[in-house]
């Protein structure tokens, strides 16, 4: 059955965003966009999350933190990079402390460009991620059945 895509729980991590994208993500929770319509919850806890949403470029300080959070999420899981900084490092790309986009350390499944990414875009990106999530689950259960 396909329960996973009906109840995606999100972990939002601000890598080194200017907070523009973060505000837009929070806007998704507000009455205007209300992502709970799709069963989406912001959990704030990797152990409960299915989707890791990262805003901002990765800096040297939080490399290990992002890796840690990702490792602590149970499978199947997907990563969504929100905002142009998360994609490439954006305007901060050449900064001494920025390693680049999230792709530098994690396998990102969906990129949501924009500065800041609009709530509609973000929701669209999450919905795209749901498809991939479902695919991963199917693979996982196949692997389990095979083993």
């Amino acid at each position, binding site marked *: 059955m396909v329960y996973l895509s009906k109840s995606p729980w999100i972990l939002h*991590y601000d890598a080194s965003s200017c907070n523009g994208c973060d505000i837009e993500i929070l806007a998704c929770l507000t009455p205007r966009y209300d992502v709970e319509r799709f069963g989406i919850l912001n959990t704030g*806890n*990797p*152990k409960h999350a299915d989707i890791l949403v990262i805003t901002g470029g990765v800096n040297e300080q*939080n490399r*290990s*933190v*992002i890796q*840690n*959070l990702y*490792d*602590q999420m*149970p499978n199947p899981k997907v990563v969504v990079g929100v905002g142009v900084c998360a994609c490439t490092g954006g305007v901060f790309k050449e900064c001494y402390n920025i390693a680049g986009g999230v792709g530098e350390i994690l396998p990102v499944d969906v990129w949501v460009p924009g500065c800041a990414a609009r709530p509609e875009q973000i929701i669209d990106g999450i919905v795209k991620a749901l498809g991939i999530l479902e695919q991963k689950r199917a693979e996982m259960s196949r692997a389990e059945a095979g083993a």
Partner: protein
Amino acid sequence: MIDAKLITVMYVELLLFLILFPLIPALILTVLRNENLRAIVVTAGAGISALGSILLLAFSVGQNQLFFTVPAPDIALVMLVLEILIAGYLVIVSAKAKQFLVIGFVLLQLLLIGGAEYLGLEGHSKVPDLLTDEFSAIMAVIIGVIGGLICIYALGYMREYQEHHKDLPDNRPKFFAVLFLFLSAMFGVVFSNNLIWMYFFWEVTTLCSYLLIRYPETEEAINNAFRALLYNLIGGACFPIAIIYILVNGGSENLGIGSLIAAGPAIALIPASLIAIAGCAKSAQLPFSSWLVGAMVAPTPVSALLHSSTMVKAGVYAIARFAPVFDGQVLGMVIALIGGVTFLVTSCIAISQSNAKKVLAYSTIANLGLIVACAGVGTPEALWAAIFLIIFHAISKSLLFLSVGTVEHRIGSRDIEDMTGLAAPMPKVGLMMLIGIAGMFLAPFGMLISKWASIHAFSQALPPFGMILIVILAYGSAVTVFFWAKWMGKLLEVRKWEESIEFKISKAEWAALIPLTALTIIACFGIAPISTYLIEPFLVTMYGKISDLIPASNLMIMVLMLALIVVLPVLMMKILIPRRSLRRYMGGVTVKDGVMEGSLGMKREIALSNLYLEDLFPEAGLSKYGSVITIVLFCVLLLGLISGGVL
């Protein structure tokens, strides 16, 4: 058909054997300094006492209450001489320590009991000296089996104790001798029918308690020993007054427990209340309770034997004996309230304690309070609850004390905070401790069944006291859940799997811990037969007829629940266990599992501490208010007694 006379002789010999036999190992042990020989004597002595008590229990099934006279007319005189000798000894040691208040009370008691003997010497022969019934037999098994196991445990424990306390003189011969003397005195208390006999054994237990508390011979230990002695003497003074009252008002034929209860509340209520006061002191009810907390300085087997499973039970045993007298009486309700207040207040204090032995001490006082409350209510159902509380408390609490003692010698601390994740380095002892704690407060285990029965009993008790007791119990049991559950949680907070350090635990300690754990579980499964074959016949003897006790179907549900706890984890383990293990979530800044990095790159291991809520439940404040309330209640009780014409 065996001759009735033969049965009587057999019984008398068995009872006298149980009382007198422990004196033999006691005498041998005083002179024995060889450790191996001591181990043999202690094990044999404990084993024979335990077997004897089990034999008595087996005989008791299906027998009614039986009374016996010991064919030795001069025994009263011997007891009087012994009492004078004990008093003399106590006067000498107290004078040495400048404890003049103690001397005062010793002399007062001597005077009172002398007066009583003077009045009642010829009455000695009018009442049977000994009695036995199911209740006595249950108490005897607790003393014989649990007491015996603790004596064996003490062999291993005391060896390490002396190694840990090199500065102390090795007084183990005396220590073990007093332990066996104590067992003898306890058998005496529970088999006595004649109150003068009971008083004699009662005083011997007080003496043993004093001697064992001061075993470490530190200043603190000596002070606490004298405090225990003083409080027990204050309470104990009520005992001879009760005897004198009976002799003056009821005549010497009412000096036996059986005949006194049969005489009805009109005669029995006042002496029973006086003995209840003595019982409250012995059972460390507020405001007397501080002696028991102080007694925790003694080596752990002493705490387990005297100050949780047996001696303090003598107090509640005496009150429970007279429970039928208190049925429906306001004075009984006052005693019940003293127990209830003690239960609530000391349970609250236990929350604020992190010293494991102090938690156990306060919880012991609390549970004794609950037993006193049940006995004071005095209905058949309440007495049922009281007896079950005595049984389960004795087993679980001794298990807990002994496991704490073992852990203390391994990790060098008796603080609960130091027992974090104990389930890893000491899996077996950890499990035993968990079972012991579960036995103290969780549903399908014994104590809770008794709590449940006591709620049933209180809800039928004299209004509005019954309801006040219910409210007290409701709060008290909530608080109980708190301090036990956080202790259990602490044991389970495993950091990582470590090498077991259990191989250093001596055989003697295992020999006591394993049977006690087994007993905790067996007793829970055996509630229904214990109730049917032992307690219900006893209640029928005491009350004539009994109605609607705990229905058997509910006991079955309890047993099923217990089975579920044991079976479910085993069945589901395979399905449930995680396929991949994760680090703990600590905001993403985990360096390795359980270690986090601060903002300046400082690496720290997490340290978790439990809630103790000292502001909400301060030890000093609570015991002060508790004492004030109970002192007021005692004054009410005394007023009741005076208006009843005792003075």
